[in-house]
């Protein structure tokens, strides 16, 4: 068996000039300097306390940072980053730590800048539909703040009650309602960013189309590799007049998928279309008793807008579901019922714990029309490997969340589950889709990047990275399978001796 190296430091080793920053031992003097910025209570450096920060929501990668800093202001972030720049210390910004791709995984001997203390909503401007926040503000708190005036903040990742806006910006978070409302990037108008050299820049702004390159558009979703956002200008959206949620039970995900295609073909743009297969329904039922009908494929369709419009369209949706073989169709009759329907869906990942001791949450995207084909492939692979897969989808935009279930105590199961999980991503790529729809590449999917993109594509992205972070200090080991040195033309590819010997492969 080949040994796969994803540890970038391995490749840094033979490029001695870049390894310097990873090898720098942070001296006590530097630590004292950092402590002076954030105060005694803003610095964590004891191993016991550091454990909390050694991973994010993806717990199978763990790295102990040298220290965690909890700044209170943009100025403090700048001071910290300037020292990092001077001393060549890599840093990783962190929000609530709910990410599922290891994006906030610390870098060895580096520091973590935790932004949880920068959690103020700075400005709420209803006439202009703008809110200005610090990065540590919790996603749902933005909606909480503007709800009395009947506004909401549209991106709604499942973790919205604990995840932070800063983290959402890093990952370009989506959620169930991005089918209609767009992603984080749609709702971020401007950013204040501390660049990796400690300087402060403003990208975008309160008004649209600020002159120059759309660097705000590049920054959102860059997974913390281009700097640290310290202020974010968000757009808020007026609540629609009504919201209607329908549940339809189908014999299998195939019929449910056909209904989705027909809804889209009818020219509708629902606020959300979610699908769950039988295993996912069972788990959600066991966990939160959402009162879902038992079936092979469950569809949740939500329409919003003016009452007359929504009611006319809901009649069509009903008809489409029925003609595609829905055995049961239910409308949520009250806000409480609607909330319960969504609770089941949003709890689906965590609910897997009810039916399996361990599981992997996968995140891939396929063109919607490839759904039946990809589903039957997943089913075949699952049977072949003897590993169960539960499926939860944002069906409207083809975003799959297969949950690969296994039992770590059974020898070989974890490996089989991991292998199956990466095969699913290969299916997504082969279908013309993407390796991640909303969880990000982070540490987890660097290898898959080379399968989705050609070398010149990745090379070009890294050139952009070099413009922001020539020393590669900001979350340096994420996204890219093979880091590039800035200011150097990529030379001939020289295989590492271990690769030539066939004991390692590069990704």
């Amino acid at each position, binding site marked *: 068996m080949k040994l796969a190296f994803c540890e970038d430091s391995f490749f840094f080793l033979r490029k001695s000039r870049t390894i310097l920053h990873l090898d720098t031992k942070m001296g006590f003097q530097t630590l004292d300097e950092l402590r002076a910025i954030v105060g005694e209570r803003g610095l964590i450096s004891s191993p016991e306390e550091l454990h909390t920060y050694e991973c994010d929501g993806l717990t199978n990668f763990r790295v102990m940072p040298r220290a965690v800093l909890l700044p209170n202001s943009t100025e403090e972030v700048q001071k910290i980053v300037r020292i990092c720049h001077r001393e060549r210390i890599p840093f990783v910004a962190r929000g609530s730590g709910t990410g599922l791709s290891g994006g906030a995984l610390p870098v060895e001997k580096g520091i973590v800048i935790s932004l949880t203390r920068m959690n103020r909503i700075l400005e709420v401007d209803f006439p*202009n539909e*703008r809110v200005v926040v610090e990065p540590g503000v919790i996603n749902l708190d933005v909606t909480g703040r503007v709800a009395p005036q009947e506004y909401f903040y549209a991106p709604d990742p499942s973790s919205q009650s604990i995840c932070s806006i800063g983290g959402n910006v890093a*990952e370009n978070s*989506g959620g169930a309602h*991005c089918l209609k409302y*767009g*992603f984080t*990037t749609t709702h971020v108008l401007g950013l204040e960013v501390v660049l990796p050299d400690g300087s402060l*820049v*403003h990208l975008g*702004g309160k008004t*649209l*189309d*600020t*002159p*120059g*390159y*759309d*660097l705000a*558009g*590049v920054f*959102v*979703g*860059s997974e913390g590799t281009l700097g640290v956002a310290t202020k974010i200008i968000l757009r808020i959206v*007026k*609540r629609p*007049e009504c919201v209607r949620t329908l549940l339809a039970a189908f014999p299998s995900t195939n019929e449910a998928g056909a209904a989705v295609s027909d809804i889209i073909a009818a*020219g509708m*743009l629902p606020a959300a279309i979610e699908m769950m297969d039988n295993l996912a329904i069972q788990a959600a039922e066991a966990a939160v008793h959402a009162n879902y009908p038992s079936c092979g494929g469950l569809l949740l369709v939500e329409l919003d807008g*003016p009452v*007359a*419009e929504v*009611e*006319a*369209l809901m009649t069509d949706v009903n008809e489409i579901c029925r003609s595609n073989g829905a055995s049961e169709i239910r409308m949520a009759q009250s806000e409480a019922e609607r909330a319960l329907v969504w609770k089941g869906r949003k709890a689906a990942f965590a609910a897997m714990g009810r039916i399996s001791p361990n599981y992997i949450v996968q995140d891939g*995207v*396929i*063109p*919607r*029309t490839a759904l039946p084909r990809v589903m039957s492939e997943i089913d075949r692979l699952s049977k072949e490997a003897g590993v169960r897969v539960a499926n939860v989808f*944002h069906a409207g935009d083809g975003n799959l969340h297969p949950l690969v279930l296994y039992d770590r105590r059974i020898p070989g199961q974890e490996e089989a589950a991991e292998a199956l999980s990466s095969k699913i991503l290969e299916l997504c790529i082969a279908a*013309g*889709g*993407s*390796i*991640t*729809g909303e*969880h990000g*590449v982070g540490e987890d999917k660097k290898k898959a990047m080379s399968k989705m*993109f*050609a070398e*010149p*594509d990745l*090379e070009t*992205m890294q*050139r*952009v990275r*070099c*413009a*922001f972070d020539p020393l590669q200090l900001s979350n340096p080991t994420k996204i890219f399978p093979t880091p590039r040195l800035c200011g150097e033309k990529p030379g001939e590819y020289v295989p590492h001796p271990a690769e030539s010997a066939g004991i390692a492969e590069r990704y």
Partner: protein
Amino acid sequence: MDAATKSEASGLHSSLRYKFIALVGNEFVRAATAADTIVGVQPKLVIEPGTESELAEVLRLSNEVGLAVIPRGGGTKLGWGNPPARADFILSTARLNEIIEYAWADLTVTVEAGCTIQRLQETLAQHGQRLALDPVWPGKATVGGVLSTNDSGALRLRFGALRDLIIGATVALPDGTLASSGGKVVKNVAGYDLPKLVTGALGTLGVITRAVFRLHPLPLNSRSFSVSNANAEETQKFVLAVQDSKLAHTSLQSHCSGENPPNSDILFEGTEAGLAAQETRLRNLAVPGSVSEASTSALMAREELWAFSDPASTAIAKISVLPANMARTMELMERTANAHQLRWRALLYAMGIGWLRLEGKPGALRGALQELRGELEGQDGSLVALHRPDKMPAFDVWGTAGDALPLMKAVKQQLDPKSTLNPGRFVGGI
């Protein structure tokens, strides 16, 4: 190559010229004429590659020897930038005009940069779909040109701008690299969002060769209304009330000028039942008697603004302001135009983007634009002067890019270190 081409292109090294011809064919390397001028700067050649890789190779050769390249689509917005510092030849995408993959059931399309917007829309309409965008001059304007100039119109209120519609792009960089980013699915966070970087970059980072868009269904029905307002204050009050209401309008724009009282157009799309209900709601919200049904051709308002008779005495600017500064902006435009003895009219979208036409003496135009820019930038806004008369004293098209300018220059340096593409045409001398 004919004699004219030879003499015009005499500035180009002859071996390079032959390389171009060998690459793209004799008939696709022609001498530039006065019609190919870019803001008063005359290029020597027009080169029309037939494939993405030909285009990338032409670019690489030019970059190697330090020629300045002006990318061009339909050529409708060549004036939307500062005069180029250098311009050796025009690199036209006219022959890259294929619709590569129209996955209608997935609501996406992959299209080459030289395809016109109109041809694209006609193809999409066959499946009842559209690119939900209303750029000016769709009959000539191309996908690549519209992306590079970030040209969106009234539909932006509902569907977002190009940055919200583009999901993938392939770009030819000056070193000959063909780089793709994004993908063919709407939801995708793998890698940097470079489609957004090249959108609105005026071709200064790379030449867009193809793009992938998300599509929307054509509306089942649509209805448009015109609402008359007494003055700027009342217009703003109406617009903000609509924005703060539960109406689900597709677009909302207001006209104002020195001659007529302001009025607003509002467009609804949807089911018959939904449209009827929204009309009632609109009539309840507006001043009694101010609402009348209008034709949906109101979407052409921006082209009307651009249909001026005398380019030598007209300036057109795109402005961006906070939506709640609308009345203040209307008054500012009126005051400034009057002070400089200029005629003016403007179109303001509810999301704060506006288009202003000023007519009068070139010197006065410059003075007015300068003053307006100062005021708008002071309120977090901007003014970009997209059309200036030839005789108008020099005036930077873009205005300030703020403290991010050094970063923008660093991005330019990484992708186009020799300033091969559109040198000097973009913000801050980029």
